[in-house]
């Protein structure tokens, strides 16, 4: 009995506030725009059963998504932005993680904390901080003009470049931590063994260090890619009008156009795109855990 309550409470909560809402999104995405205009009351007429639901299926919203090139352009551009910035985060994050893992033992907790600290501070504030740096009269341009590298301010804010910077900056801890965890576990004598067996420092790095931190790299990349794909705050604060990201499109579809069925359809497709990386990520984590055991 007690066990039943223990399971039922969180179960019912999640069913009601996670699964059911999601089913509603699915249903609305398949319903007609006309009846879905607010105030909208979804009809949960389960008596009519699944047949009625199926017969009312309307793929119009999805057709709309395919016909209007705004949407698939937005998906493609989100995908491209998320992939590029994941790669950039890896390039920036790996040397930091590597440096941390090589640092003297007594520094490591402090370095760890320095990486985690930004994670605890507001995401919004960290994105906002870049607004002042990247603007035309911002510090970056002031600095570049002072060094004489450029003669007039570069337009960085409100471009896709600013979005890359924002994503790399805010998601950097997610990349560093798993790689650091993998590198820290690594036995130093492995590198020595590789060098002893004739590797140069560089080839020892490529042949031993990188393969052993593969799990961390994969985990880090997924942890950056998955949220970057649906990102809304960064493109809307740092990106320009030409920066298309699907999170932003969904937001505008919902709040500005108030077209709920289309917004729902956008959400469903976004989720379908994310299912593959999410499943792959889960696999990777399981493999890592089994490797530890």
């Amino acid at each position, binding site marked *: 009995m007690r066990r039943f309550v223990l399971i039922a409470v969180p179960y019912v909560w*999640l069913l009601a506030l996670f699964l059911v*809402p999601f089913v509603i999104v699915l249903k609305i995405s398949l319903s007609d725009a006309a009846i879905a205009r607010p105030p909208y009351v979804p009809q949960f007429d389960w008596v009519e059963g699944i047949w009625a639901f199926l017969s009312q299926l309307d793929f119009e919203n999805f057709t709309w998504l395919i016909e209007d090139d705004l949407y698939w352009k937005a998906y493609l551009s989100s995908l491209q932005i998320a992939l590029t910035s994941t790669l950039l985060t890896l390039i920036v994050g790996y040397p930091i993680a590597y440096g941390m893992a090589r640092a003297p033992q007594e520094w490591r907790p402090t370095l760890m904390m320095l990486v985690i600290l930004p994670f605890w501070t507001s995401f919004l504030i*960290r994105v906002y901080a870049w607004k*002042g740096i990247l603007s035309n009269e911002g510090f970056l341009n002031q600095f570049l003009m002072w060094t004489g590298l450029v003669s007039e301010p570069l337009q960085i804010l409100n471009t896709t470049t600013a979005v890359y910077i924002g994503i790399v900056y805010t998601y950097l801890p997610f990349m560093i931590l798993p790689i650091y965890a993998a590198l820290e576990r690594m036995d130093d004598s492995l590198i020595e063994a590789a060098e002893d067996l004739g590797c140069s420092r560089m080839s020892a790095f490529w042949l031993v260090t990188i393969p052993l931190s593969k799990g961390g790299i994969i985990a880090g990349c997924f942890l950056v890619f998955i949220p970057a794909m649906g990102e*809304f705050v960064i493109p809307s604060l740092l990106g320009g009008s030409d920066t298309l990201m699907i999170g932003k499109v969904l937001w505008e579809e919902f709040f500005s156009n108030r077209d709920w069925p289309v917004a729902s359809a956008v959400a469903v497709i976004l989720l379908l795109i994310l299912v593959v990386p999410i499943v792959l990520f889960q696999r990777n984590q399981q493999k890592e855990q089994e490797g530890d055991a």
Partner: protein
Amino acid sequence: MKRLSAFNVVSLTLGFAFLYIPMLILILFSFNESKLVTVWSGFSTKWYGELMQNEAMLQAAWVTIKVAVISSSIATVLGTMAAYVMVRSGRFLGRTLFSGMIYAPLVMPEVITGLSLLLLFIGIGLDRGVLTIVLAHTTFSMCYVSVVVSSRLATFDMSLEEAARDLGCSQAQAFRLVTLPIIAPAVVSGWLLAFTLSLDDLVIASFTTGPAATTLPIKIFSAVRLGVSPEINALSTIMIGIVTVGVISASLVSKRALVKQRREEQEAVRAT
């Protein structure tokens, strides 16, 4: 211990500079006299003064804290229950669905979570406001709590609970007297995580709130969309300050406890 190579020193220095300089600039310019946040014109704390006068901002801060405290507390209870179920309950009907629902919100884009909850609240005719934000925040942060707590429970020595049962505890007593005190640090960090997630959330709150309840992130977002303002810098500085003090003191406390425990263990070994 080996010395750091030049490459490592450079990458660490640049890396941490990248992480911290933006925030330092933000903090610095909250003390700027001028309204322009890019030109330094003298030290002043007037923006903090103005912030304290800003009724709307204070109101939003109060709503945010209220939401965060309530939702993280409920999330901690539910998340701990869920973690216990995941680690201890073995097989039950719909276990796969259950674990899926625990992990999915962690990777679900916020726009989708927000949208789906909003549609639910409209569907059941619930007025949007503090209650709906609390429900939404509880739902996604309980999943984070359950991940933190279940990773602690997974390494928890089962025989401790069995020993308690053996010495006369009922299942509930064993949990209250033995398991809970031992996993308490994980439960507390779960609560803290839920609390900061709730404080920080813009997207889900924007979807699930109504006109009556505006949270701080919503307020900040609408202000910074228009541009940079020193008042927001001041507010950010306060928030960064609170978090920094909190995180550093928490880690110092746990570090001291660890050092003390290590020393005592060594003494115990030497005493034999």
